C-alpha cells in the first residue's frame, strides 16, 4: 500500500483530484471563487475528454484488428 501514498509521481486521476479540490475544503470564502455552474462545466469538459480518449482507443484497436485480419488473409493466400 505504500505506493498508494499521494504524491505527484503517482498516477492519481484528474477526476479524483477535481472531485476534492473543486467542491470540498474551505469553499466560497474568497473574493474570487469558482462557481457551482463553472464546476458543472468542468465536469462536462472532463466527460467529453474521456469519451474522446475512449473513441480514439477504439479506433486504434479497430485499426490493429484490421491490419491483423489483412495479414492473415495475405498469409492464407500465399
Amino acid at each position, binding site marked *: *500500500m505504500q505506493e498508494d501514498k499521494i504524491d505527484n509521481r503517482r498516477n492519481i486521476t484528474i477526476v479524483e483530484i477535481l472531485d*476534492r479540490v473543486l467542491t470540498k475544503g474551505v469553499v466560497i470564502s474568497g473574493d474570487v471563487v469558482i462557481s457551482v455552474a463553472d464546476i458543472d462545466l468542468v465536469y462536462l469538459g472532463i466527460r467529453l475528454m474521456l469519451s474522446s480518449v475512449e473513441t480514439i482507443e477504439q479506433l486504434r484497436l479497430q485499426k490493429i484488428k484490421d491490419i491483423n485480419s489483412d495479414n492473415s488473409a495475405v498469409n492464407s493466400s500465399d
Partner: protein
Amino acid sequence: MKNNLIYIYCLSDSSPELSRYAEFDGLKCDCFGGFFVIYKIVSEKDFSEESLKKNISDIAWLESNAREHIGVISRIMEHNTVIPFQFGTIYKSEEGLSNFIEKYSSSLTENINKVGGHEEWSVKIFCDRNVFKHQIEGLSKEVSALEIEIRRSSPGKAYLLERKKSELIETDIDRFTYIYSQNYYNLFLKHSELTQINNLLPKDQTGRKDDFILNAAFLVKKNSVFNFIQTADLLRKEKKLLGFDVIATGPWPPFSFISIKA
C-alpha cells in the same frame, strides 16, 4: 498585468518551514489572527474572475494547477495540521483574508482540532458484473430455483425461463453488490472516526468499464492507519476473484471533513 492576487492553498495552526518546500515557486506564509496561511501571489492574467472562468475550461491548465494545489497541501500536511481551501480561492487584499479569518476563527479552530492527528483516506470499490454474475446462482435462491425449473422444462418454456433468469440475475447483481459494498464499508468504518459517502461517478467520468459501487472518504486516527490499510490490502486480494476491485488511496488533505460555519 500585476501579480496582486492572493491564492490560498491552506492554513495551519502552526508555522510551516517553507524551506522544506523549495520545489514550489513563490510559496509564502503569513500569520493572520493566529492562523498561518499558506499562499502565493498570482496575476490577474490567470486568476481574475474572468480569467479563472476561462482557464478552468482548459483541461490541461486545470489539471496542472489542480495537481499543484493538492501537491502543495499534501507536502505541508506532512509536518503540520492543515485546513485545505477549495482550488481557486483568491483574495484581492490581505484585509479580505484577515476579515474571513476573524469571522470564522472559532470554526477554523474546531476544524483544526477535528482533523489534527488524523488522516483522510479514500476507498473506491468497483465491481465487474461479468465476473460477479458467476456468484449469483449460489447467492440468490430465486435464481437457483429458476435454474432447477429450466432443467425440468420443455425447450420452449426453458427458453422463456432463461430470459427471465437473465433479467433476474441483472437485478440481483445490483442487490448483492449493494450488500457487499455495505459490508466492506462497515469493515473500514471500524478503523475510522468519521466518514463521508461520496457520489458514485458515472462510467464516462471514471473511464472504467466496471460498476462503481462505493465511493467513501474516512477520517482515520494516525495510529489506526496501519489497520485501515491492512483491511484494504486484505479485501483487495481476497475479493478480486469475485470481481471486486478495492482501491484505497491516501493520505489526502482532509478536504472531505472540513465544514466552516460562522
